[in-house]
C-alpha cells in the first residue's frame, strides 16, 4: 500500500481572530479527513509580514498542515474548491512530499524537519534552550 504524504500551506486573512482561524482550519481538516487523509501535524506561524502585498494586504496568518494517506490517493478537489471560494484564504499550496523526502533521505545527510513531521524520519530531540544569563 502506498503511503503518501502532503503539506497544505495556508495564508489567511490577517484580520481573522484566533477563534475564526481555528474554525476555518477545523473545517478544512474535516474535509481532509473525509478525503482520506490523516492530519499528523499542524503548525501555526501566527501573523507574518508578506514578501509582497496581496490585494493591498501586507500580512497573513500562516498555517501548515502535514498529512498522510494510505492506499488510494486522496482527492483534494473539493477542498480546493472551498479554498478558492473563501476570500479570507489569500493563498494556499498543496505539495506531495513523500517521494522528495525519500530521495533526499537516501542521498543526503542534513536534518529534514518536513520528514520528521510526517514520520518518514525519526524525530530529533529538541535542542536545549539557551540559558538566559542571570542578571
Amino acid at each position: 500500500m502506498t503511503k503518501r504524504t502532503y503539506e497544505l500551506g495556508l495564508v489567511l486573512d490577517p484580520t481573522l481572530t484566533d477563534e475564526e482561524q481555528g474554525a476555518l482550519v477545523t473545517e478544512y481538516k474535516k474535509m481532509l479527513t473525509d478525503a482520506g487523509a490523516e492530519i499528523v501535524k499542524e503548525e501555526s506561524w501566527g501573523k507574518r509580514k508578506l514578501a509582497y502585498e496581496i490585494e493591498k494586504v501586507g500580512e497573513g496568518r500562516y498555517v501548515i498542515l502535514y498529512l498522510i494517506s494510505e492506499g488510494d490517493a486522496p482527492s483534494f478537489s473539493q477542498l480546493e474548491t472551498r479554498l478558492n471560494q473563501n476570500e479570507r484564504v489569500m493563498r494556499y499550496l498543496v505539495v506531495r512530499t513523500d517521494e522528495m523526502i525519500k530521495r533526499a533521505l537516501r542521498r543526503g545527510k542534513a536534518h529534514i524537519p518536513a520528514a520528521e513531521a510526517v514520520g518518514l524520519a525519526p524525530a530529533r530531540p529538541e535542542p536545549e534552550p539557551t540559558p538566559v544569563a542571570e542578571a
Partner: protein
Amino acid sequence: MAKKVFFRRRKVCKFCVDGIEYVDYKDTRLLQQYILEQAKILPRRISGTCARHQRKLTEAVKRARHLALLPFTQD
C-alpha cells in the same frame, strides 16, 4: 609597483557540501541566501550550485513565492 593579485575562490555547491537534498520551500532563511536584490535567483555560475541542486532550489523558491514567503519577479 603594486602587483595585482587575483583571488580565485573555488566555487562549490553548498547543498552538496552540507548534504542538503531536501530543499524546503518553508526554509526562507536558506532560500534568501540565493536571492538577489531584484528578487532574482542567484545564477549557478555565481553561487557554484550544481545543476541538480539548482533545480531543487528553483522549485522551492517558486513555492515560497506563491505563498508570499519570498518576493516575486520575472526570471
